[in-house]
Structure formats: C-alpha cells, structure tokens
C-alpha cells in the first residue's frame, strides 16, 4: 500500500527549506513537483532536505531536475541536502549526482552558502 509523502517547508534567514519525507513514487511526485515549483522564488536559495525519503523513483527525480533548472533560470540557488542512499542510487544512474549541488547535512549546506 502507498505510504505517501510528507512535505514541510520553513523559511530561515537567507534560505527556504523544503523537507520531503516518505515514498516519492508516480502517485506522490505531482505533489512534490508542485511544492518544489511553489517554493522557488526568484533570486532566492532553496535547500531540499531528502534525508527522510525512503524511496524515490525517476518521476520524483524528474521533478527535482525541473525545479533545479527553473531555479537556475530564475537566478536562484538550489541544493539537495542529506540525500538518502536510495535516492542517490537513482541520481547516479543518470549521472545526475554530478549535476545537482549536494550537501551531506544542513550545516554543510549553510557553510557552503546554500
């Protein structure tokens, strides 16, 4: 059965933080896509925390790709934080681990300037 996905967001100083938890499959990814695109503001910084993602299929990764490119076009910063191993495997398959900005932790992301 579907466990679904939980999305939380908060604003903290210079950056917006979006936490995605649970299973991002083809049923859940439209919700993730909307949350990502809604969270993007021009000339801002968005950190997407993936530490609590148990599963993400390619539809979820496609949403991250679309959000990342939208952010770049807007002149915003976009980074993935604490990417769980199952997600990293899917990113690596299409060599997207070399495309996204990845941080091991929120602290590292903040030190890296988001």
């Amino acid at each position, binding site marked *: *059965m579907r466990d679904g996905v939980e999305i939380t967001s908060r604003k903290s100083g210079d950056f917006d933080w979006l936490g995605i938890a649970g299973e991002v499959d*083809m049923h859940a*990814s*439209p919700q993730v*896509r909307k949350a990502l695109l809604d969270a993007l503001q021009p000339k801002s910084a968005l950190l997407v925390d993936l530490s609590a993602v148990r599963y993400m*299929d*390619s*539809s979820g*990764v*496609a*949403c991250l*790709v*679309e959000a990342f490119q939208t952010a770049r076009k807007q002149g915003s910063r976009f980074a993935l934080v604490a990417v769980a191993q199952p997600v990293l*495997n*899917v990113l*690596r*398959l*299409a*060599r*997207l681990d070399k495309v996204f900005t990845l941080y091991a932790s929120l602290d590292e992301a903040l030190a890296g300037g988001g």
Partner: protein
Amino acid sequence: MNSQMPNGYAIEVERLVTHYGPRKILDDVNFTARQGEIMVIMGGSGSGKSTLLRHLLGLHRPTSGSIKLLGQDITKLSADQMFDLRKNMGVAFQGGALFNSMTVGENVELPLREHTRLDDNTIRIMSRMKLEVVNLAGFEDMMPAELSGGMIKRAALARAIVMDPKLLFFDEPSAGLDPVVSAELDELILTLRDAMNMTIVVVTHELESAFKIADRITVLDQGRILMSDTAAAVRASEHPRIRSLLDRTPRNDAVNPDEYLERLTREIIRA
C-alpha cells in the same frame, strides 16, 4: 503494490507445461528468480527459452502449472489485474519492437502516457533521463529507422525501464551486435540491477554475456530444465548436454522413428 512475496521470489514458476498445437514445448518447468537477481535463461534454438519468456510475460496461457510474478499467479489474473501488474514489468524485445511512426522520444514516453497522469514536463524529463542512462542522449527526435541495431536495442531498453519496473525482461540483448556494443549492454544491465534493485531475466544464447551478468543461469534443453544454478556451477557442469552447449558442439540426438514419422505425416496419412 500490495503483492506478497513471502519467500523472496520475484518470479516463481511451478510445473509449467505448455503446448503449441499438439506439440509439447515446455515440460514440467520450475523456475525462480529472487528480487534483485539477474537470472539468465540459456539454451539452443528450439530449447523453449523464448516460449518460457512469452509465458512469463503473460502472452500465452499455459496448459498447466503456475507462474507467479511479484506474488501473483498470472495464470489466474483478470485482464484488469494483469494490466496493473504490467506497470511493474519492463520488456525489451529482441528486435526492439519500437513504433516506426513515432520518434525515439515518443516511443520511450509511451508507457508513461499510457499508464500515468504525470505532468508533460515530468514525462519528457523522465524519458530523456532514461535515454541518458542508455547513452542515447539527444536522439529523442530521431526515427527508429535512422538508428543502428545497437541503438534500437538501447532505445527499447530505455522504454522498458522508463516506468522503473520491478521486473525487467530482456530478450537476446547481444544478438546481432558487435562485441563492444554487446559488452556495453551487459554493463548497463548490471548497473540497472545495482541502482534500482530490479529483478532481471535475460534470455540469451551468448555464453560470454550470460557468464558476465548472471547471478544464476537456467539451462533449457528440449523444453526441460537441465540445470538452474550459479554461473560458476553451470560452467563446471559435466552434464553432456550442457557441455555440448558450452563447448558449441553440434547435438547428435537419438531419433525416435515413430515420433519423427508421425510429425512429418500427421493429418496426411491416417491409420
């Protein structure tokens, strides 16, 4: 998925018997593949390996026996249930089976457009990601007729994995390809299993490819399973039929004159 796999088998075939017309093709075949396992089905021409694949895909009804995919016996499923199960299955056919009137990109997107209501942007990014995976990046606007044999197979593989299936079936990935392209496809199969934990069934008669990718190999001969074991065990087998397959010696079967004459004259000469 609410499927049950109590014993960890993604595929479990029991006592499968199949016929084409009066001729028995598969005889009491038992076959398993664990989740995340690469199982290679090997055998010469006429061994029944393609028939076994077609039954695993639910394209034919067997005479008897059961075929469980992800815990569900497909011989007992309704058309709707089979349709749902197919969302978890990817198939790369030997000839590619791409639609010639559609671009490569449209071919790869097709399962997503048939089975999901994802946003158009998501669908296009997903299909392009899979074209990246199979090293066909940038070819999405080409027509199948413009592709080489190896490219067609890779495009077919991209389409087969576009839905992130739990089960991937690959018919003769190496057939008709030069050794380098064939080796690249083998690497790709290993990468897919490692990244996605897919259960992969590969039908092949290419020994080198089989030994490179297989966790286990099932050897079929004249419709029966000769052996189902690790690649190392199959390679070390002393079984004369397996040795003949591995050493590429021509088979020299005993001929049963009664059966042979019956096959040639059935429905022509009646008793």
